[in-house]
Each structure stands twice: as C-alpha cells, then as structure tokens.
C-alpha cells in the first residue's frame, strides 16, 4: 500500500516535470511557427506572441519564387539524409557485428582503432576533404555527402554496445547450425534484433545530415543540387531589398516538418521493435 502511495506521488512529480519540460521545448517551437506567420515588417518591429496573418503569404512567396528551388531542395535533402541514414546504420551494424561475432587476428586492433577515431574532431579532416572530393571528380554532386557516412565511429560504438547487451552469440550459432550463410544470418537474424538501435541511430543520422550546412555548402555549387540549409543561408544572404525574415522562418519551418514526420514514423517503429522483442534469454 505504501509503495502505491509513493508511486502515485512520484507519478505526480513526474507529470509536473514533464509538463514543464514539454512547455519549454514547445515554446521555442511555437515561436518558430508564430514567426513564420508574420511579415518581415512585423518581425522587425519586435516579438509578438500571437500568430499573424502572413502564414500563407510567406509560404507562397517561398514556394512560388522561381529562382528559389524549394521543392528541389527538399528532395535533395531527403535523398541525402535518407541515404546517409540508411547506409550509416547498415554499415555500422555490419561493422559492429563483424567485430562482435567473429574472432580474428586484428580484431582488438580494429576495435581500438575505431575507438580512437571516435574522438577525432570531424572538422580536422574537413580541411583536406574538399581537395580530395575535387580530385575524385565528385565536386558539386550529392555523393560526397552520402558515402562518407559509411564510416561513423559513434554509430558503430552505439551498435556495438547494443549488440553486447542484446545479441547472445548462441543465436548466431543456432542460425549457423540451421545452415544460414553469414550474410543471411546478419540480414535475417541480427538486423531484426537491432531494429530499435537502428531506428534510434537512423533518426540521429537523418537529423544530423538534414541539418548539416557546412559540408554541403563546401561541395554544392549548382542550384539544382542545393540542400535545405544552404537554401536558408541563401535567404539570409539575400540582398537588402529582398531580405525577408518571414521567409526565413517559413523556410526553417519547412525544413523542420519533414524531420518531425520521419521522427514520428520511426518513433513508433522503435516501440514496436522493442515490444516485439528480439531476444529472449
């Protein structure tokens, strides 16, 4: 009985805290939406907590601007982020599994090596990255934004940790006894078990890639290959006559919406993945 009362007290505290935190989170999101409904002139005058009447006008002025490839940009961003998330999670799982399930001579070295590069600040390599990409003839293409995500040490580490806690090697052996090939074992047995981890990391890499400005800004030149963050930067860099904060907020909002959709989609998937239960000991 006592523990029940304690539980309900904890429940109240939990709800209060959650409501406060949610309010804080939503508040900033709300401001973004509200700002997207104001004209540039309104925004310049200062902040207003109430929505204005410019939502549709802002949207149309972003969408109908012939010189501003919004839809193309969203498509490019979807391609880049989608592919990055997919290959990043797949290959990281593959690598994690390779190091977890097999014993080989350089296993320890390989693992230590990845742990070492995990801490490598990314901008360090970016200095030579552009030159490399240019030499490989991939300048101004979407490929260099996608392929390098095969090697994501931190995603690897997450997958490895997850495998440690969720994949009994007995399962692998059982599948071998059933006559499954190694790749088949990975694709049919291991991947499903890793679904929750993959979903989590897929969101993170998708978001990271979606919001990435600097690598694309470096590599992308032509308008039809620009991604959403570059387009936002273009708006912010518009000349003083066309500078329109309303449009900028609208574009940021447009950038956030697909991400939320993907997130909602995947967040259900995580729960489902877990409740279906990959491993029972």
């Amino acid at each position: 009985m006592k523990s029940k009362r304690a539980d309900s007290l904890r429940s109240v505290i939990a709800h209060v805290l959650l409501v406060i935190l949610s309010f804080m989170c939503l508040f900033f999101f709300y401001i973004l939406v509200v700002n997207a409904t104001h004209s540039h002139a309104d925004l310049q005058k200062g902040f207003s907590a109430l929505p204005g009447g410019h939502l549709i006008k802002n949207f149309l002025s972003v969408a109908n601007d012939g010189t501003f490839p919004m839809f193309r940009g969203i498509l490019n961003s979807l391609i880049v982020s989608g592919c990055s998330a997919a290959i990043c999670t797949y290959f990281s799982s593959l690598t994690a599994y390779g190091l977890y399930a097999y014993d080989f001579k350089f296993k320890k070295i390989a693992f230590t090596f990845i742990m070492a590069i995990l801490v490598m600040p990314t901008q360090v390599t970016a200095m030579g990255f552009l030159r490399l990409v240019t030499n490989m003839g991939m300048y101004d293409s979407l490929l260099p934004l996608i392929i390098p995500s095969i090697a994501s040490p931190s995603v690897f580490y997450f997958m490895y940790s997850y495998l440690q806690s969720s994949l009994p090697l007995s399962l692998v052996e059982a599948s071998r006894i059933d006559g499954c090939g190694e790749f088949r074992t990975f694709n049919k047995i291991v991947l499903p078990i890793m679904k929750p981890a993959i979903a989590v990391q897929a969101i993170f890499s998708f978001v990271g890639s979606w919001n990435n400005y600097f690598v694309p800004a470096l590599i992308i030149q032509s308008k039809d290959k620009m991604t959403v963050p570059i387009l936002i930067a273009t708006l912010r860099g518009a000349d003083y006559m066309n500078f329109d904060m309303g449009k900028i907020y609208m574009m940021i909002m447009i950038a956030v919406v697909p991400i939320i959709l993907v997130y909602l989609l995947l967040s259900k998937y995580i729960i489902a993945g877990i409740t279906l239960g990959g491993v029972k000991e």
Partner: protein
Amino acid sequence: MKKKYMSILLTAALAVGALTGCGANDSKQKDSDTKKADSNNDGEGKVINIYSWNDEFYKRVLAVYPEVKETSKDGSVTTLKDGTEIHWIINPNQDGVYQQKLDEALLNQADAAADDKVDIFLSETDYVYKYTDAEADAAIPLKDLGIDPEKDLADQYSFTKVTASDEYGVQRGSTWQCCPGLLVYRRDIAKKVFGTDDPTEIGEKVKDWNVMEETAKELKAKGYYTFASYADTFRLYGNSIDEPWVKAGDTVIKIDQKIMEWVDNSKKWLDAGYLNKTVKGQWNNDWNQAMGSKSKVFAFLFPAWGIDFTLKPNWDGDNGAWAVTNPPQEYNWGGSYVHACTGTDNPQHVKDIILAVTANKDNLLKISKDYLDYTNTQSGMKEAAKDNKTYASEFLGGQNSFEYFAPVAENIKIAPLSAYDQGCVELIQNSFTDYFQGKVAFDKAKTNFETAIRERYPEITEIQWPK
C-alpha cells in the same frame, strides 16, 4: 550522438581547399596568354560566369542590359541575343561562403576550362581591395578591357573610382551604386525638443560633431537618445581616416587617430546617456526596435538603401514622420563593385555589361527609379535632386532625399583602403563593445583587438596605436 555538432563544426571546413594552390606567377603567365588569344571578338566563349552573393546585380543586369533575351525559370542561366549564356553563380555571404568559393575559383582560374572560368565577380566596399590588389591581379584593369575610366566613366563619382583602384591608381572595377549617407530624424521629436522640424534648421543643429554634442545634450534633457548605438556613428569616423589600416606591402596595422576618437566619443556619449545602452551594435532586434514609434531615438545615419529597406520596414507609424538632413560629416556606407576577372574568355561581353550597368546614364536613372539606388552618375543625380516630382519619397512625406544625398556624394573623400579593412572594421567594433559596456578596461579591449586581428591575419606583425 552529437553528430550535429560535428557537422556544424565544419564551418571550419569553409576555409578548406586552399591546398590546391597553383603558383601565382604561373597563373599570371597563363592568363596573359588567354588574354592575347581572346583579343579578337570572335574568340569569345559561350558562357559568362558571374559570381555574386545575392541577386542584386542579376536584377539590374536583367533590367538594363539590352542584349538579354531570356532567363531560365530558376534564374540560374540567362541567354543573350547572340546565344551566349550567362551563368549566375550565387553563394550566400553567410559565414564567408561567398568569398571562400570565389577565392577557390580564382585560384583555379588558370587551369579551368574556358567555359568554367570566372568572367565577372562582385565585391563590397569592405573587401574590394582584396580583389583589386595589383599583386593579386584578380581583377583586370578597366583600361585593358577597353574601358577608359577618364572618358567612359567620367560621369561617375570620383570616390567610387578611387575605391575600385589599386595602390597605383589603376581602376579595376566599377559600380552602379554609390552610397552617400544622411542623417534621418524623427520630426515629432525634433518639434518637441527644438520647436521645429525643418530639415534646414535641424541640419544646422547637426552640422558638425561639436554642435552635435550640444544638440545631444538638449535631447538628453528631454529624455531622448541622439542615436541608437555607438556602431551607428562608426562609418563617419572610419571613412575619414588619413592612412589605410595597413599600408600596401606592409604588415603593420596602424590604428588611425580618427578611430580612437570614435572610441573615446562613443564611450563618452554612451556614459552621458546620448546613446541607448541596451542597443549593442547594429542588425539586431534591439536596434530594429529603436526605429519603432515607441523608441526614444532621435536619429539614424543611413544611405539610401538604409532608409528604404531598414528604417521603413521597422517604422510602425505614418509616412512623413521621418525627414532627412545633412549628416555631421560626409560619409559613404556600402556599395557593390563589378570586376572583370583576370583570365576571362569573354572580355567583350564583360566590357559591355560593365558599361551598360555602371556607366550608362539612362540605365542608371532607371535603376534609381526602379530600385531606389542612389546611382553612380553625377549629372543624373543632380537632375534627380531637382526633380521633386519623380523622386519625392513617400516615406519621407514627400521630401526628395536626392536633394540631400547629392551634395554629400560630391564631398565624400573615401578613406585610403587596404586589403584588411573588412576584418579591422569588424573586429575593432566587436572588441571595444565590452569596453563601452563597462565589461573590460580600455587596455584589455586593445589587447582583445590585437588577439583577434592576429587570429584573422597571421601575417600581421605589429599593431600600432596612436599616442
């Protein structure tokens, strides 16, 4: 996972790529070869590549260049009547992406295929000298292009020609725009404090800094600020320095006495309450609000674009509430320069475009009418100053601002430039903000400026402060 951080950090990376350097001498050699090959018109390339950071130039070319036939829907390619294509390569200014990409292209210019070569690029006053530098040889002298600045550009304001010239006085760029600045003030405050809102009488009250200070006292007594921020007055001092920040070929930054006067006066004005202490610098929310009807700020210092595109959108009252008059000191703020790029394979087209957009009086007047630029034609602007019908500003309650701009433009003596201006101007304002706000001592602000400069420009060996 902090992937987002990692990726964003790549700002870093913006700086990349220089690694593919080709020797400067080498490229010069090749460039002069190309120039020779292109000297006959038939050798013109099929593609004109124009580098810019926004669509300002693009719009003006489309508006006045007679050869334009059509532009693709996304605005990235314009076809001329003779079939030549203009490719607009527009990179955002944000985080220095524009200059980064341009620099990369310039370094690769010699090796680029003819149709990939940069033909025209644009620069702003703050960094024009980086590109007009004789040694860098990125911009072709106009003479070599077949434009005689003495003759073809005779009607331009001479300070714009000086700005676009290298240290030997060779003009390497041209502009359609000229940005003389005025003092624009609130009529209602003027009436309350001085009993009059007449531009001539107010002009007397702000005619130089000493008179201005008395005026500021009066405003303060009635509870008004003279200007919003210390950054507002910077251009006036910064444009009247006697020596460049860095002399050509030198590696010593000499801070001009005028800059220190700005520091001293800004501190004095801020402490005296003539400036609004809560407005820190420009282009932020507080600054925008200082232009609203609730604000206690009497005046701003703006060129034509500032009045129409910064002040007007921020003003929430009726038209006619603001008026312009002469500033305490002539100054220029802003301006975009058009350069022909060394190694271009379309010299004839480039010449035509530059002449059409920056030297043709009718075209310039059209730009003034359509885009409200104060354009680079002395005779044209004199006409505009008298033509109260065409050029009366609705926002200024029917006042013709060109009448006030014209004399300022004629008296502007542009400060000697250096390739370091953009960094120096930005960093001195930033470093002394802490001092103005009382966060650090004067000497600490100086040290902070020195640190910031050395980070930005590793080649600087010494920073000299005036005594």
